[in-house]
């Protein structure tokens, strides 16, 4: 175990069929850091996050936390992270405030923090509006607020900028950098490589269920001595 290593995945695999599978993922997550998992549609990014958050049971492989094996489905592990799903649809009959209050109370978080959370993602003024009147971007921000609410050391964000307008992508970057300053690890998936270059400390590239690159962004873009965009590194 290296000194900064916090969570380690060893040979994590998920087998659906011969054409749809994730094979032998070896990866370490450090604390604190911003880690970006990149790849195209269907590359297996969301599946990997689902295995890490205990939603999906891996076919093979193990997860270690501080050198000890952990079950991502265990309550103990779940207390260490929050999760923002990809394209979450909240109940249309509820208001933003009701949704966030529900998730906050599940973790024993005080109602005052809910209002702060709504304010952080710009939904305070529409907190009493039913979700059915929210745009896709507003729902995405509510989903982000849900993931930012608990005081946990690790946040898994699955395609967090999907549906966000340029201002909220900018705000997202600010929020994530602030989270890292507070000592947290952000593990997010994206297919926007410019976002990875701007934000991430380390990045990995997934394709057809396999991890092809995993290193610091600084190293990846300068490994030939000159700046090479990640786009070229991964696809060039």
């Amino acid at each position, binding site marked *: 175990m290296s000194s900064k290593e916090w969570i380690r995945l060893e040979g994590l695999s998920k087998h659906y069929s011969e054409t749809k599978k994730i094979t032998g993922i070896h990866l370490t997550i450090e604390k604190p850091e911003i880690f970006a998992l990149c790849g195209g549609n269907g590359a297996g990014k969301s599946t990997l996050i*689902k295995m890490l958050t205990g*939603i*999906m049971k891996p076919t093979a492989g193990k997860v270690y936390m501080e050198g000890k094996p952990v079950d991502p489905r265990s309550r103990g592990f779940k207390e260490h992270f929050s999760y923002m799903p990809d*394209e*979450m649809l909240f109940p249309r009959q509820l208001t933003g405030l009701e949704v966030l209050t529900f998730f906050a109370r*599940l973790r024993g978080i005080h109602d005052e923090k809910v209002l702060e959370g709504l304010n952080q993602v710009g939904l305070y003024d529409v907190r009493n509006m039913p979700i059915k009147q929210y745009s896709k971007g507003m729902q995405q921000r509510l989903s982000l607020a849900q993931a930012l609410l608990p005081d946990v050391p690790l946040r898994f964000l699955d395609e967090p900028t999907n549906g966000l307008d340029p201002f909220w992508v900018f705000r997202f970057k600010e929020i994530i950098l602030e989270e890292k300053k507070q000592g947290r690890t952000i593990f997010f998936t994206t297919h926007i490589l410019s976002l990875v270059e701007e934000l991430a400390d380390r990045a990995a590239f997934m394709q057809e269920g396999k991890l092809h690159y995993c290193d610091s962004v600084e190293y990846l873009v300068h490994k030939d001595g000159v700046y090479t965009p990640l786009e070229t590194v991964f696809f060039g």
Partner: protein
Amino acid sequence: MRQIARQQLTLMMRSHWLAGFGLLFSALAVLVAFLGNTGSSGFDGFNRMTASLLNINLLLIPLLSLLVGSLFLSGEKEDRGLMLLLTYPVSPWSVILGKYIGLFAAVWSVLTFGYGAALLVIFFTGGSVSVSLLILFYLYSVLLSAIFLSLAMLIGVISKTRFQALGVSLIAWAFLVLFYEFVIMGLSLIMLKQWLLPMLTVSIFLNPVELIRVQSILSLDGASVFGPRLYDLTIWANGLTGKILFAGAVTLWAVLPLLYTVRRIKRGAVDEQ
């Protein structure tokens, strides 16, 4: 679990679906109560009224419970709400039981409203129905909803989409409520006479609709409707063994689908997309 149950109840109470079904159930219950208490209706009193009410219960409550439960759960699975809940430090048991309690409380409130309205009609039309019998009937209705909501949870979790949940629920309802008795009747025609009574007895326990139907009739001293050939069955079912078996069967019907639902969730059923 309390938070999840409360949230589920709020969602149900704001659903137009439940409101519509509640109004339909109440309207039918009131109509049956009214017609059963008017001399010109062709109903000749208590037995016919309760028989009509029993039929409404056995048709509508399984349908309401199956549709409401399975569509809500499969919908939440499709919208990823259930998946998100399972990443919280709460056990799958708390999630499923919380949702079940919330759904049950909502359906229970619809039944209470319907029965309450029927009782009011009986009271104002000067009806002669025993309130204690109606309360017993109401309790059987609540039991029926508890069983079918449990089955609905299972259907909701094994279904990949709302549409699939709708289809499976309708098939389950049609089989248990409409076709089951034809299957039993068909079997009774080809079965040896000495096996007839044991087969009929077992068939009652294999279908919660029949279980509640038979127990409701027996509780209301209406065993004569079964005819002289099933006299032994009615004596046995009215005894202590029969009552214990009834309680056991109802408990199993309500608990086993929930246990299997949790097992499916633990094995990753939430993310089979």
